[in-house]
């Protein structure tokens, strides 16, 4: 049956209305003209409530992540690509190859369609670039004031090859700790985009899909024990999680940890610690010391790991302390951040 004519979505002037989530024609049109058009693939095209996926030969890995960010667009990315990268990375740091994503949108009434279109395009581009398919999704609309523009939850499924066993509880005393690049870019880019810094900043978010980097690494260092992407809470929280899960201590070398000059300067001014800042495209690797050089070379051979470095090692410590040997030769404890990273007063 040929559908009756309906006016196409006004992507220039239009805004999200409650009807876009009401299950009627407006919603069908939004899904068809925006989401399906951008994510276009055989699974979505089936038009069913879920996606029937082909058999796969390996263990499945599944991860989910809700994405909320203010502002929706920031230097180096937007909530769309962030939602794709974030979940791909959660699957990738399990050692798995990400295959499929599901995406669920909570839209705020009044959100300009132009912005939504840009976000959805960014998701489509990020997913295609990563070779991952967005196979199913959902859209809800809430009244103005009940959300912050758009919230996106993505769920990812990936396949884990036999022989790869990475997990936060696997670190052993003597293992090497590696980091794929400089810390804190995303955190400072977001603060700058919120115009909260009081100064201009050229820092771009590091948002990126890490599965290619992980694949490179695992080929070179298959005995890798732990992979993590230090997002919220920064490297400090991630390393403390690993230390606690593995019942070990970790010692870091401050001089080996890369921080861009702009990020370091912003941290100095605001009293923030780069180790506490969020990253969206960095990888922390813990592997046996004898594979450390191979792992380092593999990371550096990938565009996302050019600035990778060996930053420390795992030690036996039943108190599970993460310590930093400072540039001056002193040391301090790297603790979890107590709350949101708040600037010091003076």
């Amino acid at each position: 049956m040929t559908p009756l004519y309906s006016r196409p979505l006004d992507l220039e002037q239009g805004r999200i209305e409650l009807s876009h989530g009401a299950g009627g024609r407006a919603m069908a049109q939004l899904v068809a003209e925006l989401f399906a058009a951008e994510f276009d693939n055989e699974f979505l095209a089936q038009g069913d409530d879920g996606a029937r996926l082909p058999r796969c030969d390996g263990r499945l890995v599944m991860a989910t992540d809700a994405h909320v960010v203010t502002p929706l667009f920031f230097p180096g990315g937007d909530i769309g690509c962030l939602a794709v990268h974030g979940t791909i990375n959660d699957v990738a740091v399990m050692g798995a190859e990400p295959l499929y994503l599901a995406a669920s949108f909570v839209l705020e009434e009044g959100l300009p369609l132009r912005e939504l279109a840009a976000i959805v395009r960014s998701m489509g581009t990020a997913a295609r670039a990563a070779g991952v398919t967005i196979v199913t999704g959902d859209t809800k609309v809430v009244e103005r004031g009940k959300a912050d523009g758009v919230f996106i939850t993505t769920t990812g499924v990936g396949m884990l090859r036999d022989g790869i066993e990475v997990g936060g509880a696997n670190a052993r005393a003597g293992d090497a700790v590696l980091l794929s690049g400089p810390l804190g870019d995303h955190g400072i880019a977001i603060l700058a985009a919120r115009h909260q810094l009081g100064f201009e900043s050229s820092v771009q978010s590091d948002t990126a899909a890490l599965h290619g980097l992980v694949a490179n690494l695992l080929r070179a260092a298959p005995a890798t024990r732990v992979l993590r992407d230090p997002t919220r809470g920064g490297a400090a929280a991630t390393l403390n999680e690993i230390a606690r899960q593995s019942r070990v201590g970790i010692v870091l070398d401050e001089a080996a940890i890369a921080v861009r000059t702009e990020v370091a300067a912003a941290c100095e001014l605001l009293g923030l610690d780069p180790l506490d800042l969020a990253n969206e495209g960095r990888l922390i690797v813990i592997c046996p010391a004898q594979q450390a050089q191979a792992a380092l070379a593999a990371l550096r051979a990938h565009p996302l790991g050019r600035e990778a470095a060996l930053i420390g090692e795992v030690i036996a410590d039943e108190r599970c302390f993460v310590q930093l040997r400072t540039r001056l030769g002193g040391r301090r404890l790297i603790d979890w951040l107590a709350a949101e990273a708040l600037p010091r007063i003076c």
Partner: protein
Amino acid sequence: MKYVDEFRDAALARALAAQIAREVDPARRYRLMEFCGGHTHAISRHGLADLLPPEIELIHGPGCPVCVLPIGRIDQALRLALEHDVVLCSYGDTLRVPASQRLTLLGAKAHGADVRMVYSPLDALRLARQMPERQVVFLAIGFETTTPPTAVALLQAEALGLENFSVLCNHVLTPAAMHAILADASAATLDGFIGPAHVSTVIGSAAYEPFAREHGKPVVIAGFEPLDLLQAILLLVRQLNAGRTEVENQFTRAVAAAGNRKALDCMARVFELRADFEWRGLGTLAVSALRLRPAYARFDAEQRFDLPYQPVPDHKACECAAILRGEKRPEQCRIFGTGCTPEHPVGSCMVSSEGACAAHYRHGRARQAVIHPITPA
């Protein structure tokens, strides 16, 4: 990073530390108080204590702005936010200080109060201009470092004729706190002071002369970088070895003897001395804090909203008071690290990273930890 890396040079730091070790008299101890929370933070952040010989003992002083704010003052801000429906603005750390019933301003925000973190009082002023229908209150805290910006915001509010901006003023004075510490019997064991960095850029090095002259304690004003601190410690060791008690200025790149005239003038136009003010840890001290002059009374939140001050005793087990006076170390408090942690602070010293307890919790415990050399990359 230019102008920072130079003051963090590892080789120079080691050389300075070695010089200190050579010059200390092994027969005595050097109990030095770093007054300023910024110094406390820098010492733990760079692990400086590990570089120093055992004869040097660093004592954390009361110069952490949020630490010295008593519960009653935060209660005033909470009342404003919860009962007067104002937009309450303050600096980040202030929002996490527990007051009565352990409620914080961030907690009040979760209960629906309009509490906003700002980086500067000028941000609060901007909010007042953007929201003419709302009363915007800036909870002003801190020593002489944060006072001039508050003064500037008030001068601007006056120039703009703003009717909806006011300040809950809790600015306090560094020399008053140092006097209080030296008046205490336990001060006899203190050998000298590492003088504040940013505070001294405002009030000048001459402000410390009475401490050297009348109390016989050397003061060396130091910048916030590791080399600044190490050099200041070396200067203090030399003074003490020679029996001198002088004010020396290590931070000459920023601190002048007379301070910053312009900043002092701004402060004097807007503020006057309070007869007395309650400090956490130090008790009620005469002429130790500032309030708005009568000409600026309309910008004074205490008057605009009728907020009488009610003192509230600290939590019984909390040792913040003794720690702020330099009498106890954080680990000597029996709730340190158990009942009181950075996630659930009981006392104010556990809130800010400049607070002695938070600094020790976050950075200091490692000193007792095992450590092995790192394999070079």
